[in-house]
């Protein structure tokens, strides 16, 4: 997930005004033409047009407007074909044949198998650190080849049925072979490049030949406004027609129809991470007690200001393979007390590390500490430095705040829950679980695979280290005459996608 930036937060005061009756976003029939201005937070020095370096939300949105990936994530966060028309694995799941769409880059050159291989070679360059590198690292590039101009055959280092997830990885865009200078980027996406002023604006125009149909808009301009209040004010003042990433407070205070609020549910999970390899949470009963202490509804109401849903200690509600058959956990103070006594943890004080690295983490920690009062266990909230939170704080201690954006459930497991995962915050390391994962990613039958994923989720739900209490909505504001804004989770294809948007 790109980093959300929060500073000078008190300025959001400006965005507060009167409340009136709620107005639903108005829809009208799609209409062609016009220029839409979209305000995003930017990163000044960090802002670049190289799609492989995309990291911030604004960079992701611009990259998706100008470039295509072979696959991208659909509304259920499963990989959907994009530049790849179709994919076929062989029986061993280690050779994948991918057929490209018959389409062209903005400079008129066709998109060829060679461009795909060159793009992936650039991402996998050992001397560079592109974000999609780890997702694509299972590609055995030396043994992959272009079968013909529109067919690529990828060799994988191990069997992997979820290879399309890697094709959809953040930043895995296809660029023309040999492209290194992105000052005037050439892609195959729905919009083509017009001009760029770093830290200020990017202007794009529609690509009338886009393979999925020309965009409705003639022009699209991305402008940078780092302060959430400034984005909201620019939208209210009619200076922009789309304001990305608004707070629940802003959303609640603008229900008078001057602006339309669009919410994307299940965009980010909010959690507490318990470490299983050290006391006190190496005790299963104590983990269960923690699960039962959380009053999730209250957390959603207070921390997310109601802009979200309760979670069931599992990642990816509404995503492909999500185990929605497991009953929702609710608060049970008596049972939690009993389990705390059983674990011999009565009178114990546990330190909960948190920081302002993500919105709502400190608030959630404080509310949860309050909910634990009277249980026999005391939770002491310690607010650390936000800049080193993800890299340092999260590695230490036994209990910490956690947040994650949308990704396929398979990716979440691979990155965080295997013995050799790079960011295994909860230290969940179980050979039998690793084995289930390996079996799932080499199982072709989708029903069989789903039941394996459900089995993994059952064990995580019963005794895992993630206390996932809520899913936050992603909130976007737009002028009431803007149509076609999707509510798919943030990080998926349809989020911050402008070729389907029109000005009514």
């Amino acid at each position: 997930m790109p980093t959300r930036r929060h500073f000078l937060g008190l300025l959001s005061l400006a965005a507060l005004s009167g409340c009136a009756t709620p107005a639903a976003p108005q829809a009208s029939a799609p209409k062609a033409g016009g220029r839409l201005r979209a305000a995003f937070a930017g990163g000044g020095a960090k802002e670049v047009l190289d799609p492989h370096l995309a990291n911030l939300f604004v960079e992701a949105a611009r990259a998706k407007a100008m470039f295509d990936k072979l696959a991208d994530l659909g509304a259920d966060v499963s990989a959907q074909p994009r530049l790849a028309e179709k994919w076929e694995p062989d029986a061993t799941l280690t050779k994948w044949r991918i057929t490209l769409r018959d389409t062209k880059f903005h400079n008129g050159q066709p998109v060829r198998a060679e461009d795909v291989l060159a793009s992936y070679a650039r991402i996998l360059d050992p001397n560079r650190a592109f974000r999609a590198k780890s997702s694509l690292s299972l590609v055995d590039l030396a043994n992959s080849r272009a079968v013909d101009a529109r067919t690529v055959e990828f060799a994988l280092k191990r069997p992997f049925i979820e290879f399309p997830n890697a094709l959809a990885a953040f930043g895995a865009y296809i660029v023309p072979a040999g492209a290194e200078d992105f000052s005037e980027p050439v892609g195959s996406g729905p919009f083509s490049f017009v001009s760029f002023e770093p830290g200020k604006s990017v202007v794009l125009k529609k690509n009338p030949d886009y393979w999925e149909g020309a965009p409705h808009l003639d022009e699209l301009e991305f402008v940078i406004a780092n302060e959430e209040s400034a984005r909201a004010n620019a939208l209210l003042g009619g200076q922009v027609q789309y304001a990305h990433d608004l707070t629940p407070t802003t959303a609640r205070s603008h229900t008078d129809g001057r602006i339309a609020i669009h919410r994307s549910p299940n965009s980010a999970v909010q959690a507490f991470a318990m470490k299983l390899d050290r006391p006190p949470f190496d005790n299963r009963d104590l983990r269960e007690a923690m699960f039962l202490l959380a009053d999730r509804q209250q957390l959603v109401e207070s921390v997310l200001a109601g802009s979200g849903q309760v979670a069931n200690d599992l990642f990816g509600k509404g995503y492909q393979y999500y185990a929605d058959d497991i009953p929702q956990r609710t608060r049970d103070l008596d049972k939690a007390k009993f389990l705390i006594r059983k674990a011999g943890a009565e009178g114990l004080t546990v330190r909960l590390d948190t920081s302002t690295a993500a919105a709502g983490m400190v608030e959630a920690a404080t509310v949860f500490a309050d909910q634990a009062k009277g249980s026999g266990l005391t939770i002491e909230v310690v607010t650390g430095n936000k800049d080193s939170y993800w890299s340092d704080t999260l590695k230490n201690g036994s209990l910490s705040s956690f947040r994650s954006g949308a990704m396929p459930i398979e990716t979440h497991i691979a990155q965080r829950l295997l013995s050799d995962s790079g960011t295994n915050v909860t230290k969940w390391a179980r050979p039998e679980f690793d084995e289930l994962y390996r079996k799932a990613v080499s199982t072709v039958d989708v029903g069989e695979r789903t039941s394996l994923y459900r089995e993994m989720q059952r064990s995580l739900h019963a005794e895992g280290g993630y206390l996932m209490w809520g899913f936050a909505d992603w909130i976007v504001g737009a002028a009431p005459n803007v149509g076609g804004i999707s509510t798919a989770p943030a990080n998926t294809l349809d989020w911050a996608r402008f070729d389907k948007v029109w000005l009514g």
Partner: protein
Amino acid sequence: MTRYALRRLAIGLVQVLAVVTAVFLLVQALPGDAAVALAGDNPDPRRIEEIRAAMGLDQPALDRFGAWLSGLARGDLGVSLVSGRPVVEFLADGLGPTLILAVVSLVLLVPLSVLLGVVAALREGGVVDRVLTTVTVGLHSIPEFALAVVLIAVFGVQLGWLPPTAVGADLLAQPQVLVLPLVVLLARPVCSVSRLVRAGMIDALASDHVRHARRLGIGEQRVRFAHALPNAVAPAVQQLARTTDWLLGGVIVVEAVFVIPGLGTILVDAVAGRDLPVVQGLAVVFAVTTVLVNLVADLVGFRLAPRSAVVA
């Protein structure tokens, strides 16, 4: 006076070096580096190491500082760690909006605050003086972000008279976007400078040399504006210098609220991204402006009131 200026410039050079060294050490002391900032939420430690290697952050800090200093000596400010763009381009991008704001503010500030100060001084104790005093003291106590928030909510959003932000705008082609930011920027300096001019004018009008000028039969207007005013303005010059320095340093809060991508915004972004070469480049610019502005202020003060000897 030339020798004095040269000596001050030499001291200034040492001060600039001291500032950039301190900035380097302070940014080093901040938790996290550019690799950590770039890796974002839930980063894989292996990726952080890869980014560090790609950026050369695995080199010892002293080596990196030495390389940067020798580049500076050749007039090379280096390239941004994160985007690879030359630091000079960042400075050039941010300087435009910052200069526009600073110059327009100063052009309005000087006549306005001198006029208010003189009017109040000439009517000392009268109704006009008391009204001006009340308003300036009151306005001076409002922090700029609070004023900005109120002005945007009233004139930008509710009444819709002025653009609430300058997002994506060309500041010179659409000067209306500058109105609210300028009001916010001017509010406090007008108060402080006009208070100083008022006090200076009252002192000057009561001073020996003004009384002497009056005894010589020089006309009252000439006494006020040719003899009293220059002495009255001299103390305000230091305050003007501080204001100029503040305006040229990138007024972070005003830039953030009104979305003006000046030097302040670049500084905030660069510090957040731990993009050390950009932070260092800005430190050089800020240190040089401070030294120069203060030197000019001393020289101007010396010209206005030669009797108040400059400590050389």
